[in-house]
């Protein structure tokens, strides 16, 4: 479908005093042309804009990363105090602490990603725009992914400091990346699903955490086995589970995202 709006009736600069028009009258002469139709490049430009907007807002508002990092720091300190005297080797508990803290602090960020749009009703403006709604999903997904990666990058040194366990190992980092991708992929979808529910803060973890059990288990197993000095053959199946989870749930989330916004 093509949409054609009237072309410029004048090339005079809008703010030019020579135009002899007040700004409201000049508006009628302001040219508006839009590129219509779809293209791959334009689709990703929209995704990029959506993500960049979220990053810029986060840099100013500091509503997501600061909260996630503060929560994870507190959780690591509490776990450190709780396990310090009871566990012979910290490597026995660190995998669970890492993935547990990651999941719970991630919930805080995911909850904000759509609720902030709803609080200011900007979601309405986004849904009015002539873009595929999957743009909204992918933009939010990429922004949330970046927030989670930043949070994980801060969490690992904290674990090293509190538990004296070095998690900066290739397979652990790869498992973290794959786990975070799957978590954020499903979490972004569920955050959108629960955004319009009054009890969204409690509904999101109730819905999301059971679905994340495969990621949680695979992540813990890989981390455990790498810390125990096992090789790739011992944990390759768990990587297979993480990759399969990411592929399946990202595809499903991408496909069903449009259906969420029938009534806003």
């Amino acid at each position, binding site marked *: 479908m093509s*949409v054609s709006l009237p072309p410029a009736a004048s090339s005079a600069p*809008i703010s030019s005093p020579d135009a002899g028009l007040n700004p409201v009258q000049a*508006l009628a002469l302001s040219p*508006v042309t*839009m590129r219509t139709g779809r293209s791959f490049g334009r689709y990703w430009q*929209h995704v990029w804009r959506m993500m960049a907007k979220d990053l810029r807002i986060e840099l100013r508002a500091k509503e997501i990363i600061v909260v996630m990092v503060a929560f994870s720091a507190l959780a690591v300190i509490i776990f450190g105090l709780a396990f310090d005297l009871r566990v012979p080797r910290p490597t026995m508990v660190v995998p669970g602490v890492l993935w547990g803290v990651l999941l719970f602090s991630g919930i805080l960020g995911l909850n904000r990603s759509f609720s902030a749009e709803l609080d200011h009703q900007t979601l309405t403006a986004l*849904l009015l725009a002539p873009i595929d709604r999957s743009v909204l999903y992918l933009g939010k997904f990429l922004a949330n992914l970046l927030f989670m990666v930043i949070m994980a990058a801060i969490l690992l040194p904290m674990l090293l400091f509190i538990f004296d366990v070095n998690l900066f190992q290739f397979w652990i980092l790869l498992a973290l990346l794959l786990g975070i991708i799957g978590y954020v992929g499903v979490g972004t979808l569920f955050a959108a699903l629960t955004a319009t529910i009054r009890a969204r803060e409690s509904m999101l973890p109730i819905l999301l955490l059971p679905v994340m059990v495969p990621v949680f288990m695979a992540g813990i197993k890989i981390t455990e086995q790498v810390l125990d000095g096992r090789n790739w053959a011992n944990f390759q199946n768990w990587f297979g589970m993480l990759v399969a989870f990411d592929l399946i749930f990202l595809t499903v989330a991408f496909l069903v995202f449009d259906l969420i916004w029938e009534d806003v």
Partner: protein
Amino acid sequence: MTNPTPPLIHVQGLHKRYASKPILKGVQLAIGEGEVVALLGANGAGKSTLLRIIAGLMKADRGEITLGGVSMQNAGAELRRYVGLVSHAPLLYEHLSGLENLTFFAGLYDLQNSGARIEAVLQAVDLWRRRNDLVRAYSRGMQQRLAIARAILHDPPILLLDEPDTGLDLPSAHMLQSMLGHLSDNRRAILFSTHNLERAANWANSVAILTGGTITQYASPAMIDQDVWQGLQAVPRGKP
């Protein structure tokens, strides 16, 4: 002689329920190019629901809407280029400046030469000098003016305004009236809801009264029954 062009907004037999409560019960409405229509009705009459369905933000249970002759049921995202919506909430990012807000939305609408257009709309709503201030620092009137700028940024042929005068001070209300006057050229349809009967009479060339889920009167302000005007005036807010 019949008009060969279809109405820009054509609503036929529109029904909508919330839970089990019917809100809209067969709304019929046709608004052509150059028309400015005020939608009046008590709180809870379904004015916002009707506007949101026309804007594509809600699905109707039954009925059909065509915009410029194109059915909303079959249309994709491209049809949204036809519509601009001003709500009583500004629909703006508080942590972005006025300029950043408009630049972001211009990108989503794929506006070419967006810089000149953004300058034009910001000049028109008298916010060009404050363009780099964060929206959170704007007054309510300034936010609503920027909301209007966002809605008309892509020069939509259909402009929907849901109580745009709510919370506006007098100069902002005058500016809104002036803008509506200039925007109501013969290629655009404007539908706005309001509780202010005086503004409805002054701004619109037709008035549609939504009562009991249907449009019960649709005529020029002068032709509306005095009893109906008085009835609308007498309805207390919050008690439809």
